[in-house]
């Protein structure tokens, strides 16, 4: 049994095997050190096929697909800059001022795939795919044509997070009913007001 190559080594293998593919290693700082590989949309399918068919990796089993919601965040940073400020005598002088700048970091939705190899008995290799944003650009390429086991789990990510998987053979809601419009696992989901306990008043 050969040990699983490190994420960096897998990245090198992919970039050699799939021309044009961009792979970013995303480090996991926790003790598990389960680093993952971020793929680009265009080559995701080709990379997936490469990982499945590669003689050494043979990642033939996708055990898990899940969605992650990263909401829009705002970062505040104190920036030191130089500015022309009018002095008491009316003459403009250059002074050092500290400014707080707020920058909006747009959020995105993420699909995470955990891959194992049945033959080689190794894994997991973690793949990530990120959408452009959380509103109108929620499309991702489906990996169901590569691993059939991803079918229901991609449907679940579509149902609960609203990630649209292009190329999925049967993309419908799986847990909620068809007429449902919300995505309940998103961080900004607000459940319907059907709680009556809060209005209970003793007579």
């Amino acid at each position, binding site marked *: 049994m050969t040990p699983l190559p490190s994420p960096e080594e897998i990245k090198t293998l992919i970039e050699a095997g799939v021309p044009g593919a961009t792979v970013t290693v995303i480090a996991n700082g926790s003790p598990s050190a389960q680093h993952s590989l971020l793929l680009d949309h265009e080559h995701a399918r080709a990379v997936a096929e490469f990982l499945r068919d590669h003689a050494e990796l043979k990642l033939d089993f996708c055990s898990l697909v899940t969605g992650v919601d990263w909401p829009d965040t705002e970062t505040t940073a104190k920036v030191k800059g130089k500015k022309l400020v009018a002095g008491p005598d009316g003459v403009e002088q250059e002074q050092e001022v500290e400014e707080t700048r707020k920058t909006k970091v747009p959020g995105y939705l993420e699909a995470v795939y955990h891959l194992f190899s049945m033959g080689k008995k190794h894994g997991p290799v973690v793949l990530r795919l990120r959408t452009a944003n959380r509103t109108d650009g929620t499309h991702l390429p489906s990996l169901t044509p590569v691993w059939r086991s991803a079918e229901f789990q991609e449907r679940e990510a579509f149902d609960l997070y609203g990630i649209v998987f292009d190329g999925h053979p049967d993309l419908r809601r799986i847990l909620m*009913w*068809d007429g449902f419009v919300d995505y*309940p696992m998103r961080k900004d989901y607000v*459940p319907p007001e*059907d*709680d*009556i*306990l809060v209005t*209970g008043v003793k007579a």
Partner: protein
Amino acid sequence: MEQDLKELKIELSKNGIFTTTLEEIYNWGRKNSVWPLTFGLACCAIEMIATTMARYDLARFGAEVFRPSPRQADLIIVSGTVTKKMAPQVVRLYNQMPEPKYVIAMGACAISGGPFRDGYNVLKGIDRYIPVDVHIPGCPPRPEALIHAFMTLQKKIDEQALRGADRPRHLQADLPSEFPVPAFGAHGLEPAQNDEVFLAEQGNPLKVIQ
């Protein structure tokens, strides 16, 4: 008058004469042959199954025949979490049962949604759509608690008067025996509750104050 009759009956039975009333014998028969529906929703159903097995033996109370069809059942034990997706089916099953019919809400979930109350997918109590006769708290309630609920229901059946204004629902032609099945809406079930059932009881502590 009633007290006199009772004493007379006791006196007669001491002399070997057995008397009864239609109401008594009718309720005695009904309460000792309550057939529940074979119906379980979650972990409470496991306790319900345990209640019917040899150790707890629900058959002692005449309820050993779990009927696989709502058409033959008298009692629906809502044993477990009612998800919003399941709620219309539960109400439909109840509607398909013939009168007289009774409901036991078993466990925290069936009463109020329990630990899953804040979830987007769980109904906050089956009493929003169908009239519940006995509530059992617990997560899950032990078989003894279910047996206690069953005995409470038997007592309730036994005390039902067949005449008068407060006779049971199945003897009042103008009262409904079926209740509206909630529909799947865009954000949840529509309506969120059936006010006629949910707020019908006087002095309901959960009553909505506008």
